[in-house]
């Protein structure tokens, strides 16, 4: 058991950091200074949209995905040519079987103003 302790810690570290021990290629959000209603040409009938981007990891060994702000904004805007304002950013985590498979998502909800 004593020999297994470092291995357990390494696995825990991998699970916590969303990184894979063998292979990692993920994007994580860092910063997004969003617009307020006063910053854009907002209107009361502006649609509210939501977008999500995710990173995934499996068996602590592999991690992949694009959980970036950029991907979440692209996903939220879809085909609209506008700008997001009044944005709420949340993180959604799903982990199963002691974290053997996990999904960490960036969820953006906001309104779309015309440019």
């Amino acid at each position, binding site marked *: 058991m004593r020999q297994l302790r470092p291995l357990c*810690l390494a696995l825990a570290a991998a699970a916590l950091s969303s990184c894979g021990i*063998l292979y990692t290629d993920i994007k994580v959000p860092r910063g997004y*200074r*969003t617009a307020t209603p006063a910053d854009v040409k907002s209107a009361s009938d502006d649609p509210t949209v939501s977008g999500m981007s995710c990173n995934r990891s499996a068996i602590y060994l592999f991690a992949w995905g694009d959980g970036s702000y950029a991907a979440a904004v692209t996903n939220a805007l879809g085909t609209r040519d506008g700008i997001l304002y009044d944005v709420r950013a949340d993180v959604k985590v799903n982990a199963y079987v002691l974290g053997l498979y996990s999904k960490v998502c960036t969820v953006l909800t906001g309104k779309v103003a015309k440019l």
Partner: protein
Amino acid sequence: MRLLTSAVLLVALASSAAARGEGDEETATPGLIPPGNFVLFYDTEGPLSFVTMTPRERPKGARELGLVKGSSCQHGLSVPITADVRGTSITGAIGNGGYSKALADIKKSKPDVAGIYDVRTDMRVFSILGIYRKLCTEVTARAFAAAP
């Protein structure tokens, strides 16, 4: 002592790739590639803070240039010197992954950019076996050119 080292490693690893949210301009958390056990050399630059523009702060009459992207990277090499899971290794890191390099990258692709707004900053974490690591700062924004 061994447990303490493992705990420090745990915290260091977790913080390196943790998703950091809004308020970047106030928290000023550096985005440096994590050094390993025995650092042979370390010559990198990473993002610290960047107070970006909102649409209202654009200069009047500025010409829209659309969506632009720029990135800058730090690279790290970690050579294991023992065959155990604690991963004692000799490491080195090099590269400029800072905001200024990412903005220079945008300027290189669109030389008439006068400024950017609606800026999203993300970090790309790439690693193979923990031996080669890459940490990139990716800036996605809307750009404008100076008024004609």
